[in-house]
């Protein structure tokens, strides 16, 4: 019997959830996965929520420069689904980026001057410049990239991976989520717990949110007035009572519960130790930036991500909000870039200097890009852009991906895929592949159908594999 069938059995029958939970939490990898040698052992997804503008950050379009305020030609515009936010506009005038681009590293990667620190890791990253998605609004687009479906109800990527691979740390969950708000105080669009939810998978596979303030994990701390020693003797008493019950009833679920209380007790020590970065040397804080000392910032979360990676947490999901720049992009984008540029680059450098970049996959990007045409009144140095899913950019580093590389290209307007298109399902298939998972084999039987993260699509982008 393959493990998958045992998994399917466990999931279907509900039997031995205890055993399965232990399995998941205590880590032995299931036999069916990985399907082949993994290149990456873990993933850190630096998600930029709201839709960062590819045109102002990662996708250099010198051809647009001379075309300010020209209409996007119909041949380019095609059958673009326009959102209600620009539906009243009479025209869709080109607005080129106001930022300078230059080449970085030996590979000559073109990057915006808003990302100077990312320039320093140009030879480590692989930029995908022809990502595309079907959704044109936040909720469906972000749900799509995280769950493979535009509608709610499916498990998130981290849950799928936890379900397939399990944890390698007996003191921490396999799937951890860290959220941060932008420094400019304008977070705009909300997040949704379903983005780290388990969907129809058993709920133990849901991501555990580590929070910036208070308890890192909800209800992690003992109530005031109960010390760790007291808690130990409480749990000893509890274990004695539960063991006695198990002796009478024989239900294996009781044994599992006893084990879960012990795991909880260990988490109470391991999590605070993990989130306490005060022992990090000064040069590390300097690398990530001053914000890395402020809990709950993107920089602090990047540093935590490295610490989680060191502890073999499988899927580390960061969200940074505030990229939804319909209007005033030119005021907001620089501050968002400042929030994330240094820490993102620092994370890659830090992983590298620890020899962990080879087996850690870092991904940086959002749910879609932004339109080459202006939303609302525009000047050459003051404009906004609407949502754009037909092409956008994203970068990856480490974990078996080519270094100093770029793949795919948009057309002269940064509007459509010109070559090397990577659909959201392709990205998901590729991430699973790097973890040693055949995306067609990671399935779960729900309501009579074998579901998978990539639905009925997905192509591994072999061109970017190192």
């Amino acid at each position, binding site marked *: 019997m393959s493990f998958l*069938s045992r998994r*399917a*059995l466990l999931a*279907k029958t509900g*039997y031995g*959830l*205890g055993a399965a*939970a232990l399995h998941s*939490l205590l880590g032995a990898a299931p036999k069916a996965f990985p399907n082949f040698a993994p290149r990456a052992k873990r993933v850190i997804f630096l998600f930029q929520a709201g839709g960062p503008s590819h045109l102002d950050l990662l996708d250099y379009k010198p051809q647009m420069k001379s075309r300010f305020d020209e209409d996007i030609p119909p041949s380019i515009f095609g059958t673009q*689904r326009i*959102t*209600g*936010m*620009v*539906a*009243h506009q009479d025209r869709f005038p080109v607005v080129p980026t106001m930022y300078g681009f230059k080449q970085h590293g030996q590979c000559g990667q073109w990057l915006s001057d808003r990302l100077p620190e990312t320039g320093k890791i140009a030879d480590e990253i692989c930029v995908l410049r022809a990502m595309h998605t079907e959704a*044109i*609004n*936040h*909720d469906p687009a972000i749900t799509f990239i995280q769950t493979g479906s535009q509608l*709610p*109800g499916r498990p998130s990527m981290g849950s799928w991976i936890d379900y397939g691979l399990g944890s390698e740390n007996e003191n921490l969950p396999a799937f951890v989520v860290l*959220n941060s708000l932008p420094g400019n105080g*304008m977070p*705009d*669009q*909300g997040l*949704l*717990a*379903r983005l780290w939810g388990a969907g129809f998978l*058993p*709920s133990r596979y*849901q991501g555990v949110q580590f*929070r910036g303030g*208070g308890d890192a994990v*909800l*209800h992690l701390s003992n*109530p*005031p*007035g*109960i010390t760790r020693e*007291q808690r130990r*003797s*409480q749990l000893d*008493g*509890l274990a004695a009572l539960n063991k006695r*019950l*198990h002796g*009478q*009833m*024989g*239900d294996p*679920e*009781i044994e599992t519960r006893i084990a*879960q209380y012990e795991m*909880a007790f260990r988490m*109470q020590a391991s999590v605070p130790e993990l989130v306490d970065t005060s022992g990090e040397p000064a040069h590390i804080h300097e690398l990530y930036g001053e914000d890395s000392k402020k809990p709950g910032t993107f920089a602090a979360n990047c540093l935590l991500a490295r610490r989680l990676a060191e502890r073999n947490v499988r899927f580390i999901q960061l969200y940074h909000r505030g990229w939804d720049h319909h209007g005033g992009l030119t005021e907001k984008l620089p501050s968002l870039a400042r929030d994330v540029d240094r820490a993102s680059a620092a994370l890659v450098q830090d992983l590298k200097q620890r020899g962990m970049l080879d087996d850690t996959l870092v991904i940086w990007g959002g749910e879609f890009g932004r339109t080459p045409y202006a939303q609302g009144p525009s000047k050459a140095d003051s404009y906004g852009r609407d949502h754009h899913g037909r092409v956008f950019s994203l970068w990856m580093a480490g974990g078996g991906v080519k270094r100093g590389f770029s793949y795919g290209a948009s057309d002269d307007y940064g509007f459509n895929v010109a070559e090397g298109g990577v659909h959201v399902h392709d990205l998901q298939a590729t991430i699973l592949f790097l973890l040693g998972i055949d995306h067609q*084999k990671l399935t779960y039987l729900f*309501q*009579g159908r074998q579901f998978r993260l990539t639905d009925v699509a997905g192509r591994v982008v072999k061109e970017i594999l190192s």
Partner: protein
Amino acid sequence: MRGQFWFGLIAAAVCAGAEERRPDYGRDVRPILAENCFHCHGQDGKKRMAGLRLDVPGAALAKVSERISTKNAAMRMPPASSNRSLTDGQIATLKRWIEQGGQYAKHWAFVPPVRPAGDGIDFFVRQRLAAEGLKSNPPAAPGVWLRRVSLDLTGLPPAPAEIDTFVVDAKARGEAAYRDAVRRLLASPRYGERMAMDWLDVARYADTHGFNNDSARSMWRWRDWVIQAFNDNMPYNRFITEQLAGDLLPNPTLDQRIATGFGRNHVINSEGGIIEEEYRVEYVADRVRTLGMAWLGMTVECAKCHDHKYDPVTQRDHYRFYAFFNNLPELGEDGRVANAVPMIPAPTAEEQRKLAALDMAIAERAAKTEPKDLAAILVDAGTPISIDNPVPVAKHDPVSFSFRLQPEPENADVALYSSIDYGRNMAATTYGRGIELRLTGGEIEFRFADRLPAYSIRVVTDGAAIRPERMRHVAVVYEGAAGHPDAMRAQAAWVRMYVDGRELPTRVLNDDLAMPDAKSDKPSKMKLKPGEYKGRVAEPVFWTKALTAAEVRSVAGLRMVDIELEELRAQRLALARNVATVMVMQEREGKPRETHVLLRGQYNMPGEAVEPGVPEELLGAWPAGAPKNRLGLAKWLTKPDHPLTARVVVNRFWQQLFGQGLVKTSDNFGLQGEFPSHPELLDWLAREFIDSGWSVKGLLEKMVLSATYRQDAGGTKEAFARDPENRLLARGPRFRLPAEVIRDQSLQFAGLLKNQAGGPSVFPYQTKDLYKGIVVAADYPGTKWVESKGEGLYRRSLYTFWKRTVPHPTMTVFDAPDREFCIVRRSTTNTPLQALTLLNDPTFVEAARKLAERAVREGGASPEARLAFAFRVATGRPPDAAESRTLLDTFAQMRTRYLADEGAAQTLLAVGASPVVASIAPAELAAYAAVVNVILNMDEVITK
């Protein structure tokens, strides 16, 4: 092998082994074919390979037999590329079936249930056990049974005194005592709340709209309808009918219209800039999905984009179901800050009583009215409205305006005063922004919009009857936010409309207008709209304040007034203005919306047009004479010979009591679903249910009084190994309690639970900054958790405000779903986060303190007696000697610690809003609380 495996497990472990038996198509063969073959050789013509169908008779089966067992890997079926494979056992089963003639049979669930030979739950269970060579467990002790049945039927445990009484009664009266206990529980108002809990999952009930903005909605009147329906033991066929089509019943009552909220509980998207039709289509599809899951036990929605891969449901079938739900006057983008249309005012029983009393008083007074000539009130003259002097209207600020008008006959629906430019693109997010007063069918309509139609207040008078015959006086008052400092939206209830000096009742067409902060609240300039209205207008005036009723009378020149009558009318209007609304289903006026098959399920790719209808060949004929609408659909679903409805429903009630259905896949009775563990029992229950007049209480009574349910839940290691899931029912049910029950019983133990039924949802403890970093930045209702004060902290959990995108963690950690979609079965997991919650969440820490307090006051004098008291409250039984020792040892350690550090004791006792009892020494109380904290975490306490 995976699809078939569960059966292999039980069959192989429990009987002599499936391999030895004559294969039954439905039980043994079809699941193998469905899992491994139908994908390419099933009913989906587009996917079919080699022209071969295996889902219906006719294939050359000898050839199949060869292909599944050939050693030639290239020839072998299923091919390796399919990621599917057959086990040796499955190959043997298929080959034997083919050798024995390859007989097909209609899928069992599509054949109407027939009353089997034999009677009673225990008969069928024992028959199966005997065949397996197993015996039932002995009955559980009476007190254990009482705890189990109380938790199952009311979601609350019995108090020790109730157990004592019952044990004595059971000894004296035997069966009669059991029956009476069940009837008492079924008669408790708590019963309806417990039953509603599961139905709220199925019906995807929540207090927010979901999606990005996830702002608040008001559907609690529907939730309370569900509770009442269960408490009244509404026949289940009516329960279905009223929720699907209450509005289409003859002369529907308010309750029947509220019931149709079932079809509106789906998520609704208010994200700016979405394409309306894309989402409206999703809402209709969600109703089909929910109908399929809730009552057909079928994944009908799988046929949204293509013919169903496994079940004989075509894409056309899907859109014929869809057509029943495709004619609502609803919008794709709606619900930004309040309910989405269509909605109705839904006064509570109490409010209905008050309204009726006022109506009577008004009628009485009107019959003997005594108008008096009132002295005019001095009202300042206001500012004349002109082109140069439009009315400035901001959402925060009060404003009143009045004018006289006498229309020409041709004013069917025209703008009078307006700041709205309708010349813009209707798809734009700013379409229709502004304020307007219209004359429409002789009524006055007030519009105040960010975007029409969804984001607006629209209020229309009811009974103005403004006709060409005479000049009338109109006054409109918008109160503004002055009296409502915390309002997060501008509200229809702030609008008053007067004709000839008298306030008129109004209908609210839309009530969904977000409130900006005062800084960005720019007034909209409303002026006479030229061109549309034809007729006379005189004396247009406005005031930057809200005129009172008396002031309006003066302005209108209404002098002869019966003040008492006017006050009664004003009271009624005020009451009606503030009743909660509920979203409902209703049919659009005029020609029904056409339904098309949507190619690949895409909203913008209509294919063939279809009429409402059901797969009659598969699931039974349409009832003669039934209308082709939702009411007819309900009649079809509740036909006594419908193959699925009753089976699906009784199976779900069985699941509620036994932890899993007789059909384990309670969400799927189709070809991919599991074969029932006790097919005859399922059919017997379905027939009993129908023949009893669909009585839910009757059904549950049979189940909980059965010997099967009453068994002891324990077992040997071998017993658990042999039948880990208890599919054969040789043991009583034992599984962890649902999230809601875990919290509710803790509150009950503590004496904190407030048993008040119904009403708006409440906000108990939730970690303060939980929403930080997650919820949308805009300050919509539902984006802040403002903790309830007093009783709201201690209501049953089904009344906790349910925010879809961030549901309450104490619920989700114990496997409650997010309610974005219909769910008929929760998973039951066992995780360290559950341990952390039960140990440290203030809800449970406070409950431990309050139960400790009870133990000290009510439990006796010695620590031993007090701890035994708390233990018994929580488990329903006294501790034995070993348990007592454990409790006492732990107590001694806690006590030593708190005697040494009274400050620590006090901080522990300070958790929670309930006051700390001063009469008990803090160190003592804290020590007891710490031990009760342990007790509340016992597996036995959170398991039924």
